[in-house]
């Protein structure tokens, strides 16, 4: 079957994407010499952000296969294209190998030798294991994920040959193993920035943030593609309504998990645990914690509370954008207080994040435009087109 290369973006838009990607890389290249810790923390944030988005894309596809749902078929190519960003996340995370000593305390053998707590954790937290686990996570996510996607495309390609294989079983496998890997990846990459501190709910906390940001991205992408006219005939406001209900549920899930972690540590009041929140509750970081909750939960929650706003593109765009910015703030609050006394925010953060977003949009559009935008032979297509809510 031929691939149809659709021009989704105009030439100036593509140019801007390229400029931002270039600026992002340039900023990183310069700041890694001037302020290495900050540069590596930014790279970690960007890489983890992209990994979460890509992971969420595959997760949405897999969830809908496993739950046998029909409504999502017309927008399935959107999360599938989101998944194609995972290799970039992989590259960004692999680069951390060179910055490991700047941001991970446990990567210094001499520090670990003099620190009984870190020595006790060194069976898991050591540079070798860190890299091996990272490769295993990504190879599993990407390799099995591509298999699931290729089965969906095989249904479209095969006209009358043998029965296509069902992606359902593989999706369940990916969700189960890949989900556990996501939890461990958040322990490895984010929680180990402060290796003396631990929280068993930390993986779930990151999972909820990943889910909300991924949903927000799907929503923005669907609205954008509707406006450019590509999904205009197939995606109705009812599909956006389904997505917005997802988002509404999961922003609440996010605050539920955030509060669970916070309240248990506050209640138990054990010094080795509270040290994490003391850093985040004083000074400017303290006000950022409030901003974090406003962006990730309270404002989107109020916006998405009503049926009318859940069925309106504009209000959905506002809510989804807030959640995306909120995810950045959320990751910033996890990552930066580990090495910074006060928040740092300047052109480095802005440009690196803009570069990250530009790279994501670039890959997303490229992947989306190179395939058929509708799974034409999917058995649930008709059900999806007929969606009423």
């Amino acid at each position, binding site marked *: 079957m031929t691939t149809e290369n659709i021009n989704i973006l105009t030439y100036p838009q593509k140019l801007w994407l390229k400029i931002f990607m270039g600026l992002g890389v340039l900023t990183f290249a310069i700041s890694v010499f001037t302020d290495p810790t900050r540069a590596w923390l930014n790279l970690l944030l960007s890489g983890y952000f992209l990994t979460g988005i890509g992971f969420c894309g595959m997760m949405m596809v897999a969830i809908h296969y496993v739950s046998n749902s029909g409504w999502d078929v017309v927008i399935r190519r959107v999360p599938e294209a989101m998944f194609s960003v995972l290799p970039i996340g992989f590259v960004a995370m692999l680069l951390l190998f060179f910055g490991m000593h700047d941001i991970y305390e446990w990567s210094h053998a001499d520090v670990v030798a003099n620190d009984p707590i870190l020595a006790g954790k060194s069976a898991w937290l050591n540079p070798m294991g860190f890299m091996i686990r990272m490769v295993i996570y990504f190879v599993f996510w990407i390799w099995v994920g591509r298999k699931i996607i290729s089965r969906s495309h095989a249904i479209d390609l095969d006209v009358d040959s043998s029965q296509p294989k069902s992606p359902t079983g593989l999706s369940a496998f990916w969700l189960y193993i890949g989900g556990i890997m996501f939890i461990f990846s958040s322990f490895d990459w984010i929680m180990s920035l402060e290796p003396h501190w631990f929280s068993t709910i930390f993986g779930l906390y990151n999972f909820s943030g990943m889910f909300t940001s991924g949903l927000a991205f799907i929503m923005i992408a669907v609205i954008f593609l509707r406006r450019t006219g590509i999904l205009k005939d197939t995606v109705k406001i009812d599909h956006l309504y389904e997505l917005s209900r997802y988002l509404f549920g999961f922003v609440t899930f996010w605050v539920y998990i955030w509060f669970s972690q916070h*309240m248990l540590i506050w*209640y138990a009041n054990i010094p080795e645990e509270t040290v994490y929140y003391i850093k985040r509750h004083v000074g400017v970081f303290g006000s950022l914690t409030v901003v974090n909750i406003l962006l990730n939960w309270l404002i989107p929650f109020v916006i998405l509370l009503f049926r009318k706003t859940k069925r309106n593109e504009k209000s959905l765009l506002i809510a989804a954008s807030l959640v995306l910015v909120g995810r950045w703030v959320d990751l910033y609050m996890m990552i930066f207080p580990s090495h910074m006394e006060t928040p740092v925010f300047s052109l480095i953060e802005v440009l690196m994040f803009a570069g990250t977003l530009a790279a994501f949009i670039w890959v997303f559009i490229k992947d989306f435009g190179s395939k058929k935008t509708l799974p034409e032979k999917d058995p649930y297509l008709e059900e999806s087109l007929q969606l*009423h809510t």
Partner: protein
Amino acid sequence: MKKYFVVSFDNEYDLVNATQEFKNSGFTLLDAFTPYAVHGLDKAMGLKPSRLSKICFMFAFIGLTIGLYGQYWISAVNWPINIGGKPWNSLPGFMPIAFETTVLFAGLGTVFTLLWRTGVLPGRKPKIYAPDVTDDRFVIVLTKDLRSFNSEKAEEISTIHHAVEWQEKLESE
């Protein structure tokens, strides 16, 4: 004594289309009965969106207030106890219980409001207009106003939309 015009269909699409046409032709719909929930039927019948979600919100708010104020009153006003050095009015610690009372009030309040408004209370004897609706039929019931009911028109619409059968029924007490 009220009279009804009962039309049965054997699939949901005919039912929705016929409902639309009955509505447009000025008939008074009493209700439509289906073996399962049919999407788009509420729109065809011209029903207003349910107000139940507002009731749900109100009950949730009452639950939240009671949960928060109750704990504040118990642990900070009426009988202050020092637990682990925490302040008497410890808002984070009140949250889980306030959450539970919110869910409890919203859930029970909504269910009982629904039961009360729809009249589906225990011991109620159901009115069955067409026994087949409990199996696989889709039924529209029109209120037959003696002066203005156009039986020919109603039968015509029923025929166009492949109705399986139609009949007039008297309300039997």
